[in-house]
């Protein structure tokens, strides 16, 4: 599988990272080096093997679905680049 410039552009878009046009060829080249390395996995016989979901055989704990934390709006907003009137502020999303 070879990554072309169009694929590199699409992946950057999906990842929400702005990549300038003139940087795309080099990026595609790096992807190809990494993916070429990953291609080795195709040699492995994985017939009948379940994909690993948890490295230690443990059942996730359950608890009552109730609020156990919260009530500190100011702390939540303290690090926001732009917080106004108790909310995170972002550029206009709807027209």
């Amino acid at each position, binding site marked *: 599988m070879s990554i072309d410039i169009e694929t590199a552009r699409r992946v950057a878009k999906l990842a929400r990272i702005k990549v300038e046009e003139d940087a795309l060829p080099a990026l595609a080249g790096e992807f190809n080096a990494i993916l070429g390395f990953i291609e*080795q996995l195709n040699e492995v016989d994985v017939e009948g093997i379940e994909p*690993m979901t948890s490295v230690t055989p443990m059942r996730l704990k359950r608890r009552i679905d109730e609020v156990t934390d919260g009530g500190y709006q100011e702390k939540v907003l303290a690090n926001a680049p732009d917080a106004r009137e108790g909310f995170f502020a972002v550029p206009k999303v709807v027209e």
Partner: protein
Amino acid sequence: MSELTKLTIAEARDKLRAGDVTSTEITQACLDQIDQADALGAFVHKTPEIALKQAAAADARIQGGAENPMCGIPLGIKDLFCTQGVPSQAASAILDGFKPEYESTVTTRLWQAGSIMLGKLNMDEFAMGSSNETSTYGNAVNPWRRTGDDTALTPGGSSGGSASAVAADLCLAATGTDTGGSIRQPAAFVGITGLKPTYGRVSRWGIVAFASSLDQAGPMTKTVRDAAIMLGTMAGHDPRDSTSADIPVPDFEAAITGDIRGKTIGIPREYRMDGMPADIEKLWSDGADMLRDAGAKIVDISLPHTKYALPTYYVIAPAEASSNLARYDGVRFGHRAKLAQGDGITEMYEKTRAEGFGAEVQRRVMVGTYVLSAGFYDAYYNRARKVRALIKRDFDLAFEAGVDAILTPATPSAAFGLGEMADADPVQMYLNDVFTVTVNLAGLPGISVPTGLDPQGLPMALQLIGKPWEEGDLLNIAQSLETAAGYVAKPSRWW
């Protein structure tokens, strides 16, 4: 008073309890050393006020008859740990100015035990790197130099600042985190002990996430005994990390008996890589001889899927990273790009992430995005998870056959020069993790122990891999290796 900063945790504990020294004295000595060591680039945020306040409180507790062996011990904290009110930015520009409103579970446990925070330590950005060269703070530098050569060397990564600080005696010990080797490789490069515990032994809550199924925090210390002491305080169940194991934490220090007679140590043939340097090969066989002389049985074993560990890792880790790092969007914390007239929210995300993430982080986020994208999920991500299951099965079978621990080299080389890998393709840098990454994929405990110097006078280390939850046994075997190797070398001070 720089002798005080050379103390091990065990020595400091004994001197503190005997009243020979105060925590304030050790802490001040560390702060003085830190101020003289800016050339190492290890401490990136210093917290002397917090340190001296904590030290005074620790001294009062020790006078009152304390208790926890970590009480009064000054530590460096990797920048990946969230520390309340103190910058915690994972060495990334995207978290410029971020001061958490909360404290990670690991650091909470250390402060409750009475340990002292000297400051935050340099690292690779988001723990992605093997040389500490991807940090927004600039490089951390290895206190070691090649004999007769003043080339600046890497302390390894990602916990490069932690490694440099402990090796240079700026602190008694440091926290690290390890996703593919980020505790063990830097520890090996600077001649200290680095322990990655079993996945789930230490809470990940409040540690900036890289690859959640692989990340694990652990101690970076001057001795194996110190690793045992510090792990005892770091470990334990945490309801806020659903993957933290709800099992008792044994007394790891008590497990160090010095007796490894009857233990079976496996030597995996697949770790004997083509073109392995002769000095690494010799270090490894010498290590096996030392354990045999101490009464262990040495057996050859096979871990057939070893060669697939790195490619598996470079699917799974970027996939998880691309998901974890989606939160850095310029909305809730850290950096937000300046927007042009007419820019909307998508431009805000894209510009913020392009400005805030460094090149290696961008690369991994995009590779992760690709392997998870429609049409490739099965071919890459699911296949990698299947191979991961096979890698773990290799270890399970070895342990079932009676192996107690596995001995391997820690790294494929000694520390290399900063900038030496600048023109290499990314895969070349990834090869640093070839011996360590299997351990993360299988969720096992692993420890790197310095056992010798290479012909250029640089530290070299071996790795021991243990059974899940058997850190005590692993530490006991590691200490036997440490004792037999008799490694005592220290870097000559140039900083």
